[in-house]
């Protein structure tokens, strides 16, 4: 366990340095004059001109060598200072913290909701393989997963906001605003986790230990609770680690559609506006979040599966 945490910590440090270096390098390799891009981000397309761009260049010292600016960034990072946004001038740390908070709420909500929807349906389907529920679920989960987030989000908005008029279609600030974006992400996750749970249930239900449990006189419910759930839990949780990529990619799209002030939205804007400290800050936060969530998945598996504790 300690070894696992130590490894993850090392991984986090390496992710931080690599992300910082890569974003810096890639952003300075992008074509186009950064001063113009930043000026466009600050003053809008009606007001950007060379005077504004030159003012930005002078203010930010963009004519300094790339290597020098990168070393300065690493130095600042060591003192936990991510610098100021080139566009808004506000501290990156504050902006990322605000955005990350919104994104984490969305992502955590989506994962929890997907656990409420996906695995229970999957288990019921897996207990009667080939049944109506099983075949229906195959179709439903395939369709749900195949629809891009953007379209799924619009469909949900059309149903709940435009047609039923029970939920707000976009914005943030109240609990009702979180429901549709969370549901959009959760449905995609649940589509996969229900399939994983269904297959695991089929495998567990046809296993020798499951049959033995019945043979020694345990009731159907009891054998399922004791020997079934835990074994089904392992692949479902493990697969969640794989799904995190889907989640992070989904966050970017869903945040834009629902005008949600999250980190995905922030990253896209920072790239367009050539706001290097913001790109580094948001990419760093996303990379570290990825390491953190994977660690959580490992720990959860550790808890569910006692066999690993001795390994």
């Amino acid at each position, binding site marked *: 366990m300690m070894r696992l945490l130590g490894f993850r910590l090392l991984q986090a440090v390496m992710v931080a340095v690599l992300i910082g270096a890569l974003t810096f390098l890639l952003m300075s390799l992008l074509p*186009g*004059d950064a001063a*113009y*891009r930043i*000026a*466009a*981000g*600050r*003053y*809008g*397309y*009606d*007001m*950007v*001109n*060379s*005077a*504004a*761009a030159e*003012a930005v260049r002078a203010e930010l010292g963009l004519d300094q060598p790339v290597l020098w600016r990168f070393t300065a960034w690493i130095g600042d990072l060591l003192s936990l200072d991510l610098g100021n946004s080139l*566009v*808004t*001038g*506000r501290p990156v740390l504050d902006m990322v913290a*605000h955005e990350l908070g919104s994104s984490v*709420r969305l992502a*955590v*909500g989506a994962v*929890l909701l997907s*656990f*409420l929807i996906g695995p229970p349906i999957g288990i019921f389907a897996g207990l009667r393989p080939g049944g109506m529920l099983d075949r229906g679920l195959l179709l439903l989960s395939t369709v749900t997963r195949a629809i891009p987030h953007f379209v799924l989000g*619009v469909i949900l*908005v*059309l149903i709940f*906001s*435009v047609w039923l*008029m029970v939920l*707000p*279609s*976009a*914005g*943030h*600030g*109240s*609990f*009702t605003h*979180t429901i549709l974006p*969370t549901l959009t992400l959760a449905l995609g996750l649940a589509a996969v986790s229900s399939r994983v749970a269904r297959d695991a249930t089929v495998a567990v239900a046809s296993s020798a230990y499951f049959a033995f449990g019945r043979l020694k006189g345990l*009731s159907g*419910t*009891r054998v399922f*609770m004791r020997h079934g759930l835990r074994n089904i839990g392992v692949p479902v949780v493990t697969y969640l680690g794989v799904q995190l990529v889907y989640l992070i990619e989904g966050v970017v799209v869903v945040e*834009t*559609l*629902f*005008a949600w*002030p999250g980190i995905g939205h*922030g990253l896209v*804007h920072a790239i*367009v506006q050539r706001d290097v400290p913001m790109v580094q800050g948001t990419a760093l936060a996303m990379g570290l979040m990825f390491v953190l969530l994977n660690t959580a998945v490992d720990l959860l598996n550790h808890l569910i599966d006692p066999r690993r504790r001795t390994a």
Partner: protein
Amino acid sequence: MHSRNRPRLSLLAGALATWLTLTAGPVAADDRVFDVVAPFEIGGLDPAISGFIFQRMQITETLLEADAKGQPLPALAERWSLSDDGKQWTLAIRQGVKFHDGSDLTAAVAAHALEAARKKPGMLRDAPITAISATGNEVVITLSKPFKPLAALLAHSSTNILASAAYDADDNVKQIIATGPYHLTLLEPPQRLAAERFEGYWGTKPSIEKTTYLGAGRGETRSLMAESGGAELVFQLDPPSIARLQRNPSVQVLMGPVPRVLVLAANAGNGATAPVEVRQALSLAINREGITAAVLRAPGTGATQMFAGSVPAWHDASLAPLKYDPQAARDLLTGQGWKPGADGILEKDGQRLQLKLLTYSDRPELPLIATALQAQLREVGVDVEVAVTNASAIPAAHNDGTLQLALYGRNYALVPDPLLTLMADFGNGGAEWGPLGWNNPQFDQTLSKLLASDDPAEQQQLRNKLMTLVQNDLPLIPIAWYRQSIAVSKQIEGAAIDPFERTFGLSNMRWRP
């Protein structure tokens, strides 16, 4: 036996409860909040950056206002006068005006706000101002030469008047303390703010008490918010959604002309588009009615000259309109020595007539129109390569002279008088958002005469002359006149479109009883 499940269930319930607590913010129970949704994000506090949002939400105000024709009106300055040589402006500050923090507006505070604005990129920096000072109750602005459009500048959002306490020692804005009928109660950049009616407002207090602003970049998001009643006012609708919203019984769609013009800039100094005949040919090859009907869904807004009739000062009804005539375009190009090659693309001296067109996607219709132009110009043998980039690529390419074609929507009412923007864009051979390599001494002479003229009839004649020169030389090829569109909830009355895009008009609206 079910007792074994309890810990698990309670764990799940606990997790769900945590999530609910995490996500539950202040619930907007009061439905009498006027929600505004527009595409603009709040980039920062400085008036030069996002001042237009605070101004449109009527949180901040300027010294002068503008009427529907762009003529100056008193606002925070009650009166203004000009010295005989035209180099000194004196503005009397309105008495009894309170800032949102309770402090008084004085001439010294106003002068400080203008000085701070002058330090940053913006409109004020381009004016020939030598000094701004406060004498008693008056702000005195001294110029190095007469500059009539200063009144329009003092109505621009970058010259919003903020209290001295709003600035830090380096004159950076640290909070918004202004004088408008609404005061800020919540600011969450880049997307959200909330404001409430300011009870100490000097003018007529608005009827609507609470309001919020949300920046939502996607047109689909905004349309769906209008459709679902999620917003009372949705600004800038995407053309395909307009027809659907018009059928919605709870929403009214308002459309009105704005002095924003969709133009195609062609390099007039270098390359294939340098001869005026080639630019005229490009103009003749463009089917403006097709583009406005199919892409902008606004038939009848194809530009026959630079400005529409809604900008009467700059519209000359006697000017011969720009036409669509592909055969005439081909003839003009043939006259310039361009002959069709094997694939139909024109060639001259072994060079193909190939042009790169820059545009950007901040305005979603631009890439669509760019590809429509690509197809139309191909009909007359011009090969256009479309590059959708960042808006700043156009001024950058203008500056290093590599620009061939650029498509953009230019707002000529950045300040209420189009003259200022025209002067900056077209004067002295053109600037970034204007012509490139275009030299017409007559234009500059006429412009100087216009700036010095006091006679309205002569001014009109000079303006007509300027527009005739542009129409003949086509350094910019006008394509369409924009119409602004907003969707307003039918629970609201008194909504209108401001042609100068200076306000959402909150203070003129009321909840329908």
